[in-house]
């Protein structure tokens, strides 16, 4: 399982994550102030132009990330054709696409390690609420480590179900999967304590 960061190197990969996130927040705020198609079309063209230094594979990756939006585009198109409010529909669709594309661009050009470092820095004030950055980083690492472990566990539970039953494994595999997760969590807790604790 890979992160969504693009392997194609763009100039944006060299920028730090913090300023990119701040710029994205500003840009999105401005987008939601615009409410006519023309300025939003310019904003979309601007975001599209930012993708060009990455070349064709980078643009293809960006378009793939936009694919989950098409059902909403379809609903909006039908709805606004029906109500005969094409300007309103175009405004909403342009704003949505631009906001999502801009956010995806930051995700595609920022390495996971940089994001985690930024999260740790931003979460530093939470230490006063009882969540030290080190504990948060440990939780992130544990979750990522256990994605392949649990994925594999779920596959094996489905396999053994199929070995015993001609029917497809349905929701019934969820109980053993949850139980296995609880058992793993107990063992991880013991292992952490044995190594000096998480605190």
């Amino acid at each position, binding site marked *: 399982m890979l992160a969504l960061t693009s392997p194609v190197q763009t100039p944006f990969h060299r920028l730090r994550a913090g300023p990119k996130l701040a710029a994205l927040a500003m840009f999105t705020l401005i987008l939601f102030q615009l409410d006519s198609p023309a300025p939003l079309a310019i904003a979309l063209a601007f975001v599209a132009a930012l993708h060009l230094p990455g070349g064709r594979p980078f643009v293809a990756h960006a378009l793939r990330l936009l694919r989950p939006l098409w059902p909403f585009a379809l609903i909006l198109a039908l709805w606004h054709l029906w109500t005969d409010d094409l300007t309103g529909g175009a405004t909403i669709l342009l704003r*949505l696409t631009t906001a999502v594309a801009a956010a995806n661009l930051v995700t595609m050009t920022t390495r996971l390690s940089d994001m985690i470092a930024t999260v740790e820095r931003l979460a530093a004030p939470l230490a006063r609420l009882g969540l030290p950055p080190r504990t948060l980083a440990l939780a992130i690492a544990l979750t990522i480590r256990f994605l392949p472990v649990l994925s594999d566990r779920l596959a094996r539970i489905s396999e053994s179900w199929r070995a015993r039953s001609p029917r497809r494994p*349905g929701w019934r595999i*969820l109980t053993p999967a949850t139980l296995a997760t609880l058992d793993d969590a107990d063992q991880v807790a013991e292992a952490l304590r044995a190594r000096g604790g998480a605190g």
Partner: protein
Amino acid sequence: MERSLSHIALFAALIAVLGFVPQITLATGVPITAQSLGIMLCGTVLGAKRGALAVLLFLLLVAIGLPLLSGGRGGLGVFASPTVGFLVGFPVAAFVAGLIVERSTAPIGLAAGFGAFLGGVVTLYAFGIPGMALMLGKTLPEAALLITPYLFGDLIKVGLTGLITHSLARMRPGILMSRN
């Protein structure tokens, strides 16, 4: 401390892994994704606080760029998409489901089912519908109409959450952090 941390982290991973499972097709032929079922289970199994934290950790991993939402979606873009209200509602849904199980003295299966309904349907929709109305420029009733196709699947997940939580409690008494 270690026990809370490991349970929160591993349940965050469980929610993600349940999103990889293509789709669970029920006997009636209705396909449902197991991810929101994972959110409800976080609440009913781990309790309000730990359940909500597990969901928050899961969302954090999505935000920093891991494609863990069902359908392989992820990154910052999903927080600008029409379904953002549901993402915001996820941790609150787990919290409400957990709170009901913690406070109620009803049999565990019933309490979990009721908690999953109040959290995973009532609370979740209370966030999801305004989010969709805002992002798609629609009124609240119009947005509610757009998500009614999901209601049936979500009600099935409520029932399954009750059943699974009940089986867990029966197989291993004392394993539910929400009841200890």
